[in-house]
């Protein structure tokens, strides 16, 4: 379990949008896991079980808060300007916008995106962790990735958004 901490932290970082809040979540999940190891089924993947615990805690916390009173403030470029070339700065700003975009996604889309595109799970594994059909994973993932791409490059005028194949899609 110690060995998977970096991955748990990455997952929590993406869910919560901050490494501090993420570490709180990892801590809560590890404590719960250690106290409930008898509930883990031998032969199943320990990491999947941990991710499941983590997303359950996260969802509970979200529900408890009901309304998420905060909007992520899109920080200004001030702190990244400097000796960096314009391109490096642009790349960092893009990643910052990506984080904001992930923050703003509906909870269920963010979970799928995090499991599949950040932790590298297969659709099937993500479906098992979240207890939804694979088809749901696919559609949530498509919506999330569309949104993310559009926000990431929204200020770059010469990059067109993802086109649609169907007239009323996206």
């Amino acid at each position, binding site marked *: 379990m*110690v060995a998977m901490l970096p991955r748990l932290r990455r997952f929590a970082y993406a869910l919560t949008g901050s490494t501090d809040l993420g570490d709180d979540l990892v*801590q809560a999940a590890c404590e719960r896991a250690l106290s409930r190891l008898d509930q883990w089924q031998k032969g199943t993947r320990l990491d999947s079980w941990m991710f499941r615990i983590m997303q359950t805690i996260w969802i509970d916390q979200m529900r408890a808060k009901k309304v998420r009173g905060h909007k992520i403030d899109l920080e200004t470029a001030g702190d990244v300007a400097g000796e960096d070339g314009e391109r490096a700065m642009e790349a960092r700003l893009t990643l910052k916008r990506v984080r904001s975009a*992930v923050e703003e996604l509906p909870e269920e889309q963010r979970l799928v995106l995090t499991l599949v595109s950040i932790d590298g799970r297969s659709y099937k594994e993500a479906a098992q962790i979240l207890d939804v059909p694979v088809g749901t994973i696919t559609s949530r993932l498509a919506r999330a990735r569309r949104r993310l791409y559009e926000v990431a490059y929204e200020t770059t005028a010469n990059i067109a958004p993802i086109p649609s194949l169907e007239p009323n899609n996206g």
Partner: protein
Amino acid sequence: MVKLNDETLIAYSDGELDEKTAAEVEAALKDDPVAREIVHKFQEAARLAGEAFDDPMQEEVPERLLKLFEEPRSEEAAPEAPGAPAAESSNIADLSQIRAARETKRHTNVTAIEEPGTVRRFALPLAASLALIIGIGGGFGLSNFTAPSAPDVIAAGTIPQSSVLHAALERSPSLQSLEEVSGDGLTKNQIEPLLSFVDNNDRHCREYRITSSNVSGSQDLTGVACRGDDGAWTQQIAVVQEIPASGGYSPASGQTDSVLESFLNGIMKDEPLDDEAEARLLDSGWQ
């Protein structure tokens, strides 16, 4: 013919389609520049998402998280790990003491390989220790063992009767090592049983360490093997770890110890055998 839509294209971009469907999509994409652009941008979005949250993979894990798995140094003040029954914790403490005693003995008898201060002890509840082992052995695997300089954990198997390891397990008292030089004369192996015990299936088992060194450096393999009724020793677990040439602090040695300690606590029936009991078994051929 497959219908190109967001769902198909995202699954295609993630390599999630079966071979036949993927081939159909591939063919359809040839005539559809818009769909090609969507695939490209879906992939770009995935790359961005991965990159945006990569920091934790590059950083050290914060101490406060590691502490959750770590036993306080002071035995008296040790709070229970969450939910860990008291009996299991005391079992771990006992083993730690025995190991500590053996380490002391070892350092007085042989040239020290490790710094005595590098042993980091983890107090996982019993079930946690099993989970760790099964998690590793169950195929989620070495590639996901991402902590920097994490030790490799290698698979189980029967130890050949002709090997020096077999001879050492069969006949060497704990903390006395046998030496072996490889066929090409370049690698030297020092093989040393560390302790003996009876497991939950009433088999005799031994923890051992093989230190291999050649010109480019050295590595430790620490393992546990159990003896079957047929006299064959079967490796239960082994952890391989590079020893830094500098002889300095190796974070992995703490992991090796914690992995093995957890494993031993999971399979040991009682405390390790004392020197007398072990000597009797060595004399009698483990009868």
